[in-house]
Each structure stands twice: as C-alpha cells, then as structure tokens.
C-alpha cells in the first residue's frame, strides 16, 4: 500500500479530510517558499482547487514545486481533488490538471471538507486501488 501526499492551506479543509481517512500521509508545506519533501514510495496526491475565473493558478504552488522534482513525480499513481461545484467547470480542476500533466487517473472528487460518504468511498477505493495495481 502506498502513501498519501497532500496539500492543505491554512484553511485546513483538505487536512481534515485526510485525517479522517486514518491512513499514512505526508503534508506538503503550506508556504510556497519552503523546500518540498522527497518521497521514496508510490503515493496518491490529494489537493484542493484554487481557481480564478479562467482556472489559472488552480494548482497550489507548493504542489507544483513538489511535482517539479522528477523523483517525486515518478512515484505519483493517482490524484484526488477537492473543490466546490459553485465554481462551475473549474470544480476540482486541479485534479484534471495534475492527472493530465502526470498521466495518472483522477480517482475521486469531493467538495470542501468531504462528507462521511466521501471518506468511506476514498478509504475503500484506495485499499482496492493499491491491492489491484501494486
């Protein structure tokens, strides 16, 4: 079973979701100036979407910095995105961008902190995902 790498801003929304999963995880620094960690095992990335009207800047900077390291990028197996349907087509856009850039599947989307149903879906989904593919 791989790990989870996630980004959560000072709003702590994504952090709360990941904590509810109760699985091993690595949090990326909130501050874009800090050095991102280097991972050495397969992981699924969980990240929120930040969006302007054109979707620019949808992926948080510390996530970009982390994925710019080829060693980290080599271990990404999937992505899970948080968002809000109120942002229209940009809902969970960060997940689409990372999925396309890293050629990994977008595994799941949830809104804001996620509901209990989302937590169950992701927990069970990840279990199956890791046993099936690795």
């Amino acid at each position, binding site marked *: 079973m791989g790990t989870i790498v996630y980004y959560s*801003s*000072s*709003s*702590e*929304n994504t952090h*709360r979701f990941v904590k509810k999963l109760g699985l091993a995880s690595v949090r990326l620094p909130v501050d874009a100036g800090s050095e991102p960690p280097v991972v050495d095992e397969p992981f699924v990335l969980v990240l929120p979407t*930040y969006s*302007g*009207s*054109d*979707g*620019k*800047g*949808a*992926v948080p*900077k510390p996530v*970009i*910095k982390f*994925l*710019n390291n*080829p060693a980290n*990028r080599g271990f990404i197996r*999937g992505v899970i995105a948080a968002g*809000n*349907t*109120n*942002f*229209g*087509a940009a*809902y*969970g*856009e960060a*997940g*689409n*961008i990372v*999925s*396309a*850039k890293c*050629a990994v*599947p*977008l*595994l*799941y*989307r949830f*809104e*804001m*902190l996620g*509901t*209990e*149903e989302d937590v169950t*879906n*992701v927990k*069970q*989904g*990840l279990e*199956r*995902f890791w046993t099936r593919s690795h």
Partner: protein
Amino acid sequence: MTKGKTVMNVHVKPLSRVRAINWNRIQDDKDLEVWNRLTSNFWLPEKVPLSNDIPSWATLKPEEQKLTIRVFTGLTLLDTIQNGVGAVRLMNDAQTPHEEAVLSNISFMEAVHARSYSSIFSTLCLTPDVDDAYRWSEENEFLQHKARLIMEQYDGADPLKKKVASVFLESFLFYSGFYLPMYWSSRAKLTNTADLIRLIIKDESVHGYYVGYKFQREIERLSEERKQEIKDFAFDFLLELYDNEARYTEDLYDSVGLAEDVKMFLHYNANKALMNLGYEALFPPEACKVNAAILSALSPNADENHDFFSGSGSSYVIGKAIATEDEDWDF
C-alpha cells in the same frame, strides 16, 4: 491643573493613532489570497448580454414569470442586507486591516449583485410586475422572518454569531433563489441570466469560504466550553433558518411543483455552509440528492462520474489538452 493633565494624557494615548494599511506586511496570507481572487473575479452586469433572454422570457407562463421576479426580489433583499449591514458589521470585528479591506470588497460586490437583479428586471420585465414583487417582498412573512433572524445576529454583540449568520446567508439562504435560474438554464431558458447568476454564485462562495475561515481562526483560540456553545448555536440557528426556508420554498415553488426538488438543493447547500464553518454535514446523503440537471447547470462536469474507484465511471483520458498552463511547471 490635574484636569488639564488628564486631558493631555488622553490626547497622547497611542491607541488613538490611525494606521495606514500595508499590503507588504501581511499577518494572514488568506487576506491577500482572497483579495486577489475577488478582485480578479470582478464583473458588472453590463458585461452579460441579458437582452438575448427577451425571447426566452416571453415563453414563460405568467405564473412562471411571477415566480421568477419574486425569487429575484427575495435575492435582492438578501444582497441588500449583506451590502449595507452584514459585511459592514463584520468590518468592525476585523482582526487585521487587510481583513477589513477584503470585507469592503465583499460589501461592494453585494451592491453589484443587488444592482444586477434590477438590470434583469429592466431588461426583461414590465414595471408594474416588478413593483408588485417588491410589495410582495415586504409583505411575505417567510422572507421578512428570514431577514429578521439574520439582522438580529448582526445587531447582536457576539462577533462569532455574526460570522455564523453571514456564512449561512451567503452559503445557504441564497440557494432557494439560485435554484430557479439553474432550473431555467437546464431547460435552455434564460441562459444569459443564468450566466450572470453563476458569477454571483462564485462570488458568494468565496465570501462564505473567507468569513468561515476567519470564524475558524477565531474559535480555535477558545475554551472547549465556548467552542461547544458556538457550535450548538450554529446548528440550532441553521435548523431555525431551515424551518423557515422550507416554508418559504413551499410558498414560492408549490405552484410549479418544484418545492421538494428545491429542498434537496437546500439540504445540500446547508451542509456546505456548515463545512465553511468547519463543521460536519448535517443532512444525510439521501436528503441531498440534487437533481442532476440542476447540478450540471451549476457545474457542467459535476455529474460526470469521476468515481474511478468503483470502476463505474467514465474512464479518464490521459494527456488530454490542458486549458490552463502555469509558468511554474518544469515539465
């Protein structure tokens, strides 16, 4: 002599100094982040070609037109409160000068929203029909009760309860109204009006997120007892608002047979309002089954099944074109 000295002391008190805002010294990064997001989202109703909806408006039945004007008048009332009272009261409680500046942007955009409904009216509707709806808004007990419940909190002394009221207004109370333009849009009616409403929805979502974030920063410093007291207040208040909102919904939508569908949308958004405050969802999933057409009018790809885990969804496409590039990416 002594008296004169006291007066002098009052005058030299450093507390009375007025400080200039410095955006290059930020205490809370969220202030700048949200300021940038709100200012980059700035829009005016003149930018939306509302007049293209004139033929579509004419296809609505008289009772559908009446419902639409009433719904928009109800929304105007809420925007008026946020513009003139809600955001302004929150400014008094701001912890940083930047928070105060963000709230001033929020206040102004609420005025833009309120003004937008008048643009819709002047483009599509007859003046006597609109006047009727404004009269209705002053007389409708549920709309007035909703406004009163919110105003009570804004007039109260508790900064946290004011934030709760603001988030519930922004993230929950608007949605009995937002449902209708999404419904028309899903039936290819009033699509330009729906585009304008979507701009409003995006703004309100950032407002709810930001005020909810500030609320959470403040309660994390409190005792467990006080935290619980505020949480109890928030859930009680939500249920009180919901009770009234359900009746407001029936009053408006029963005539077109949509009340139950609107309520699903209300539950879904009430949960999101609670999440903005950092609380767990209250309404169970089966009460939040929003009509797929409404959800897709809100977010065009929201009903696409991205549940890769269950294997039931549409398969993803690797390497599809990316609409948004960021110069920071190295690969």
